[in-house]
């Protein structure tokens, strides 16, 4: 393991930016955003340097570590705070800093009218630093610090305009649901320490063979809960739609490209645990499959462009989770889809931001229409992203998504058939709702409000979109050419169980996928292009549409199952605290007062009652003597 001294700069640069901007206050308003962008870019530069160094080394020498300091030294529990940059982390580092810098540039223009812009950039830098710590940590505990950090940054950024109560509530909802997931990570760390005595990745990987499968399954399930919370997978997915309350760059960076992919990173990083606990792995696959369909179905009924894209993100991460749950064969494809998704989803979100910027921050797609003439660059970049997500060759999604579908079928047996069919169906529905978004926004007749005058965005905004569009086009090809990414990540995963049996030939899989896509596009085209699109959502729709509009009743379910009982519990506890605990305290006070009042009656001022007391006292004394004499 090579050691390095420059890893810490990856995190330290954006962290310093965040600190400087937050502590400097209004004085830094003039140049704060530029400094933040520069720091983010310099972090990207360090990442590129590390990559160049890593590529030149041999496979065993590629991972680089840096120990920062001795963190916890309690009895048998020793944890060092350290950083580990290996083939997996470098992908993430480049994605985070690269896409992050582009979004910094975009935000300079997008947030130019906001007088809290400096604070926004501070939080963005904080997020970048925390996410880098998450992917660079060399132990579960260091990862946890980054995990919490991105949760915090997400809360701060979703609720950035917290003068609107709905937005503040949305940020709270995101944070609280994340916390539920964080419990899973805590328990996983506890299980790791209890059964293996170590929490570093290397340590746990070594100890996996000595640990019982039950413990590993438990740890795996806990890690899955954590990933579900952070990545908005079923059952902790309800917060992602509401998280769109934050500014669009936030949605692009955090809830499309990076934070929501942290869950996939966690599962991939813990591959040794999941490979040894097949039950947990099966659960991962099931969660991925459910979320895939969940997100796709929600996306078909959403009129808010950002919420439609959020549902799409949920669905695509479901693909990644499903791939990660397929074992060593699937990890590389999960990461590949993650990287390509980062490009095209971030690009589409930035495009949506651009559309909103031109339409006075209107998000309802029913108020859009025929925008391609007025926003050509946005139309082109968004369109390239759209083609990528559909999986049309030679765009990025084609390579990554089709590999996932193929691996799903190759899992063998009933499981393979079911998973393969689900992924195929998901591809079709994805095509349907993404086409719906394109048609409603960019084509058709104008359905604008009176005061809308759409215009193209400034260059600071469309330049990042263009760069991301280039990524959407080319990244898939580059990553899969000659199985580049697969070979790059190969040493990390345990491949001794690989038995490549192909249920279906790759070409058949691609054909099936494209067929599904075509069907989806056609249905959308017929529905929305041929018929009039109402500018107000129609009420008399089928029950399925109604359910889909309600996010498949996820909020209703959460309220009924968790929130209301929770509220009832707290009300009961408060009442019990008041009645029982406070009641006891008050009761003690009243008993004291009551007995005091009772005793007070003795002091009635009459000499005779005092004399009687003396007599009683004398009797008591003699009784005592009597007892002693017995």
């Amino acid at each position, binding site marked *: 393991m090579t050691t390095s001294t420059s890893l810490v700069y990856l995190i330290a640069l954006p962290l310093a930016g965040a600190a400087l901007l937050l502590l400097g206050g209004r004085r830094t308003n003039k140049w704060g955003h530029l400094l933040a962008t520069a720091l983010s870019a310099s972090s990207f530069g360090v990442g590129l340097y590390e990559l160049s160094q890593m590529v030149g080394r041999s496979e065993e020498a590629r991972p680089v570590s840096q120990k920062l300091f001795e963190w916890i030294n309690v009895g048998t529990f020793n944890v060092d705070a350290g950083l580990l940059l290996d083939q997996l982390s470098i992908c993430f580092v480049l994605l985070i800093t690269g896409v992050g810098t582009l979004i910094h540039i975009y935000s300079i223009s997008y947030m130019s009218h906001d007088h809290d812009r400096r604070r926004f950039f501070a939080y963005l830098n904080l997020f970048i630093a925390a996410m880098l710590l998450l992917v660079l940590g060399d132990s579960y505990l260091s990862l946890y610090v980054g995990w919490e950090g991105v949760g915090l940054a997400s809360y701060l950024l979703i609720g950035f305009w917290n003068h609107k109560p709905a937005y503040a509530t949305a940020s709270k909802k995101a944070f609280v649901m994340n916390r539920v997931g964080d419990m899973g990570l805590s328990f996983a760390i506890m299980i790791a320490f209890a059964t293996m005595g170590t929490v570093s990745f290397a340590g746990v990987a070594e100890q996996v063979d000595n640990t019982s499968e039950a413990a590993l399954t438990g740890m795996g399930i806990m890690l899955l809960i954590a990933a579900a919370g952070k990545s908005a997978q079923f059952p902790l997915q309800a917060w992602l739609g509401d998280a769109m309350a934050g500014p669009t760059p936030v949605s692009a960076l955090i809830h499309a490209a990076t934070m929501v992919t942290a869950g996939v990173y966690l599962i991939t990083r813990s591959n040794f645990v999941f490979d040894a606990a097949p039950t947990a792995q099966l659960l991962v696959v099931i969660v991925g499959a459910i979320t895939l369909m969940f997100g796709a179905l929600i996306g078909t009924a959403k009129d808010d462009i950002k919420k439609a894209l959020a549902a799409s993100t949920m669905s695509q991460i479901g693909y990644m989770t499903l791939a990660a749950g397929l074992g060593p064969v699937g990890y590389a494809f999960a990461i590949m889809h993650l990287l390509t998704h980062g490009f095209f989803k971030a690009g589409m979100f930035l495009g949506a931001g651009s559309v909103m910027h031109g339409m006075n921050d209107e998000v309802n797609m029913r108020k859009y229409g025929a925008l391609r003439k007025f926003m050509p660059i946005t139309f082109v970049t968004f369109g390239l992203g759209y083609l990528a997500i559909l999986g049309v060759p030679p765009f990025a999604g084609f390579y990554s998504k089709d590999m996932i579908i193929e691996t799903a079928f190759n899992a063998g047996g009933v499981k393979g058939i079911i998973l393969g069919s689900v992924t195929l169906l998901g591809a079709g529905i994805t095509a349907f709702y993404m086409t719906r978004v394109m048609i409603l926004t960019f084509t058709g007749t104008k359905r604008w409000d009176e005061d809308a005058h759409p215009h193209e965005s400034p260059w600071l905004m469309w330049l990042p979109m263009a760069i991301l569009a280039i990524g959407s086009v080319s990244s898939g090809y580059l990553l899969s050419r000659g199985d580049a990414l697969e070979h790059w990540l190969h040493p990390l995963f345990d491949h001794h169980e690989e038995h490549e049996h192909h249920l279906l030939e790759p070409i058949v899989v691609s054909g099936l996928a494209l067929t599904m896509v075509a069907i989806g596009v056609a249905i959308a085209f017929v529905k929305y292009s041929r018929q009039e699109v109402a500018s107000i959502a129609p009420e008399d729709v089928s029950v399925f549409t109604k359910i889909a509009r309600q996010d498949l009743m996820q909020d209703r379910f959460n309220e009924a199952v968790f929130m209301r009982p929770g509220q009832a519990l707290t009300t009961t506890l408060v009442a019990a605290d008041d009645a029982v605990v406070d009641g006891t305290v008050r009761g003690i006070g009243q008993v004291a007062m009551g007995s005091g009042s009772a005793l007070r009656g003795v002091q009635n001022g*009459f000499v*005779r009652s005092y004399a*009687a007391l003396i*007599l009683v006292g*004398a*009797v008591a004394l*003699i009784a005592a*003597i*009597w007892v002693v004499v017995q």
Partner: protein
Amino acid sequence: MLQLALEVGQTAKPEAVMFWILGPLAVVSSLAMLLVKKAVHSAILMAFVMVILAIFYIAQDAAFLGIVQVVVYTGAVMMLFLFILMLVGVDSSDSLTETIRGLRPIAITAAIGFGGLMVSLLGRASIGRDAVGLAQANVDGNVQGIAVLLFSTYVFAFEVVSALLITAAMGAMVLAHHQRTTVRPTQRQLSINRFRGESLGTAAGLPGPGVYARHNAVDVPALLPDGTPAPTSVNATLSARGDMLDYKKFDLSEVNTKVEEEK
């Protein structure tokens, strides 16, 4: 019961007889002292109990103490009580209802408990089976015996107690002392009062007793120089009741005015 009576009756010594008569009597009297309404009756019963106790003392060879009991307690202390009762109100009586709640039951319970405990403790005590008796100690006489102890072993306590007596007497004087509420009249004021009265006839005051008296009984009036009875010489109650005797019976038939010369 019969056996006990026979035993007591057949082995009775005079002291036992005395005890078994006077003992219950003392107890009953003290109970009655508690229960009678009038305070004077309580005082009389108390005196009775004191006398019985004096008899007990004498029966137990404490002759000096018995006499002192009669003289001091019955004679002085109880009489003092009666005097004070006279001052306070002979007729004063307590009502039988108890004003403080629960006091009577507590008192009676405590008393029964106290009495019961004492009696049972005494019963267990191993003294008194063989009384030594004071024949030896009183060999020179009871008074001498007490004097020997009093002036040798207990002389210090004796001195202290006598100081206490003096203090008590002084204390009583101080407590009973009236403060004047009005200014003491001066000699001048007294003279003025005398001569500014209703008439000058009262200025010289009344003559002393016996100057005009005809007889030393209270119901015979004194005769003034003109032969009429003085109205103030007999108690108004008696004269109102008509108990005043006729003065004419005591009138002098002849007054001898001859002066005998001294030879």
